[in-house]
């Protein structure tokens, strides 16, 4: 018998490990899909600007065994001499309740055994699964005209520019301001004082869909309500930006009055006061009339509220929403109603039979996912449970 052989073969076609690794990844994706409702409303994700990696408990991917509880046992270790009773071997992380075993927390590398109970999932992974299910409902081809407009608007002032465009007033103001300093004798204009008007080309986006995101920021909207609404709009914004390159989103915040706000304000600021929802609808209607003619735009007004509207205002709301619906492809009304109380606004909207009108009640965080699917699916939507 030959005592030994030494060989080197071509292993490049051996893909077994990679194949099963791929199967594992597939299972991770499946698990994300199953846990989507919880993931979508995960606080750490929303607060992290999307950079964070979240840990998703994925039950089907852990290999469960009947094994000893590492936390409760005594284990042997090797010291470097003169180890005394009471010496600290490793520091644990406080309040790590339910931590099932080693391999977690700080200094994980030093702890025996590595068995993660959770799979790490990035925002992108979740988006990939979530957005596959969403789409803008009933999107119609609108007139493709006015894709770009060649007008110019002077709306900026700079230090460099064409001499024909000197902004005399600002140049003088700047000269006076500089000359006011103690050692200056008189007002003079130096080249640094010159200010030029500059213009911008105004181009209209080539897409013609617009979302009017309306949110109730009144005092009755508690932390939970605002959280749900913002989570919804967070995903909605990301979804639209990912899938429809040029969809416009306009943010309207309201309490007793409505006004347009920028994205940052919409997501981060709190307000207070009473609730008159019709103010938001009126504002939206005005916006549509001025900027988004329905024959050119697919319009999607979506309104988040806790339903706690001024009762006398309801009738007006119904009228305005009917009008909004007639101009829109879909009108979404989502009500965050933690305790399932009878809400004045929902009871007013309850009778609607309009095909464009969709409503959804969010009772718990995980239902934000349901709302997303309800509003962003083809006609009819998904009924709330």
């Amino acid at each position, binding site marked *: 018998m030959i005592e030994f052989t030494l060989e080197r073969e071509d292993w490049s076609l*051996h893909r077994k490990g990679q194949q099963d690794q791929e199967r594992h990844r597939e299972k991770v994706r499946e698990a994300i899909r199953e846990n989507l409702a919880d993931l979508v409303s995960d606080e750490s994700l929303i607060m992290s600007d999307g950079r964070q990696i979240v840990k998703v408990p994925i039950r089907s991917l852990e*290999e469960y065994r009947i094994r000893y509880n590492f936390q*409760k046992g005594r284990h042997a270790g090797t010291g470097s001499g003169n180890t005394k009773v009471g010496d600290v071997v490793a520091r644990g992380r406080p309040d790590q309740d339910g931590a099932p075993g080693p391999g977690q927390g700080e200094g994980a590398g030093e702890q025996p055994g590595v068995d993660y109970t959770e799979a790490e999932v990035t925002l992108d992974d979740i988006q990939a699964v979530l957005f596959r299910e969403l789409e803008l409902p009933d999107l119609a081809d609108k007139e493709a005209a006015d894709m770009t407009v060649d007008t110019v608007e002077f709306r900026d002032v700079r230090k460099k520019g064409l001499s024909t465009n000197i902004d005399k007033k600002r140049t003088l103001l700047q000269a006076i301001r500089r000359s006011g300093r103690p050692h200056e004798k008189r007002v003079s204009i130096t080249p640094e004082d010159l200010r030029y008007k500059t213009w911008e080309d105004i181009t209209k986006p080539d897409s013609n869909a617009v979302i009017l995101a309306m949110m109730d920021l009144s005092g009755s909207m508690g932390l939970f309500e605002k959280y749900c609404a913002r989570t919804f709009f967070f995903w909605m914004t990301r979804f639209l930006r990912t899938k429809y390159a040029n969809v416009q989103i306009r943010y309207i915040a309201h309490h007793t009055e409505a006004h347009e706000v920028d994205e940052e304000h919409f997501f981060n600021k709190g307000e207070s006061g009473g609730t008159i929802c019709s103010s938001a609808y009126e504002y939206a209607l005005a916006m549509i009339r001025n900027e988004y003619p329905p024959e050119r735009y697919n319009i999607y007004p979506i309104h988040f509220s806790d339903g706690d509207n001024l009762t006398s205002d309801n009738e007006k709301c119904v009228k305005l929403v009917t009008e909004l619906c007639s101009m829109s492809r879909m009108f979404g009304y989502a009500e965050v109603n933690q305790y399932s109380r009878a809400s004045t606004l929902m009871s007013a909207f309850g009778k609607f039979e309009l095909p464009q009108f969709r409503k959804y009640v969010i009772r718990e965080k995980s239902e934000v996912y349901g709302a997303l699917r309800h509003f962003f699916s083809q006609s009819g939507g998904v009924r709330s449970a």
Partner: protein
Amino acid sequence: MTNEEMEQLAASIEQMTEIAKSFGLDFYPMRYEVCPADIIYTFGAYGMPTRFHHWSFGKQFHRMKLDYDLGMSRIYELVINSNPCYAFLLDGNTLLQNKTVCAHVLAHCDFFKNNATFRYTSRDMVERMAASAERIYHYELQYGRGRVEQLLDAGLALSEHIDASTDGRNARKVVKQQQYLHRRGEHQVVFTSNPHASTPYDDLWELDGKPPADDAKKPIVKPRAAQKDVMLFVIENSSTLEEWERDILSILREEMLYFWPQLETKIMNEGWATYWHLRIMREMDLTDDEAIEFAKMHSGVVLPSRMSINPYHIGLALWEDIERRWNEPTADEIATFGRQPGQGREKMFEVREMENDVSFLRNYLTKDLIEKLDLYLYQKVGNDWRVVETDWEKVRNTIVASRVNGGIPVLYVEDGDYNRNGELYIKHEYEGVELDLRHLERTLPYLHRVWGRQVHLQTVVEGRDVIFSYDGKKTQRRFVKE
């Protein structure tokens, strides 16, 4: 490794083989294969190049490969207990590293061949696993990948609960014989008493391998004595498994029986291989650079860990201590045991043959050694892990206990017809360490999957007997009334 290095390695191996033989090592013919990293890690994850597909191996592969790519850890080699013995070397290793690895695996192979624990392992497992993988693949084609995968999930979760002991082997032989006799008796009464028999020739059809018509209604037996081999009990008595499913579980059980001795001799085996690679490499002509590289590599391998027992480190220390104590016995040892000086190697070869980790540690981990190695016990105190014990006997006993049954909780099947309802009753042999209850509650559904009826497991929590039951919908726990 360049071609030139391959030639040098071959020359070195020839030399080392001679040196090893002159030391008295006794091994199978060796088959060294130089492979790229992803292949080594594949084999590491699967435990065998030819094993069947399962996502958990893929997950393991990914994790190991990632650690390697990030430079956090690396496997130097992989050796397989078979005849001839396959050893896989990493292409990315330096020549010196691969030389060391070859010396190391020679000793592993000697251990596989000569240690009593390994006496019944199949030496043709590479081929057997390939054949099993082929069968499982065909089941996937026939019954669907999903079903096979689900069964493998359940089977792998339970596969550690087998009985690899000689006692278990002998007991099974007796049972087999009785079953055989029993079955012959059954056939004699088929003609008269079996109401399902449609023709008098049914027993003849059975000889063709056709399962009897009422196979599912096999009598559910009570194990005569508490049976440790949960897998075997399920395979033989489950009311729900189809034949192909029993086959898959038998494959898993057979593979675990093959791997089991390696679980039971981890410290001995690694210590033995480390002891010998050190001795063999010392006989080789190394350049200064190589000597330093070797010293670095070796010290990396035996690096002690504050949070665990490094088997290379402790194992090597134990073997060297045995050699010293039998080479230079104290006056006391000469007087009490009649031990003659200079018998170190002889004693080592005897121990290599007779012991497993439990007896090895119990017999040779002495007070002096524990103090010299500064071994201690630590435990979670509040949020921190603190040293709680340095008394040598307690340290030794805990280390020994942690090696019992390969470090896996011992379960016994107590009853296969619990509540007279065909329910499975399993008892955990509690010896002071509680089970991971979270894992337990999630493993029971797997047991239910293969048993087909309600399953119960009795263990101890906070000093009280508790029974966990799973009925196919939810897990319940209740205290045992005293």
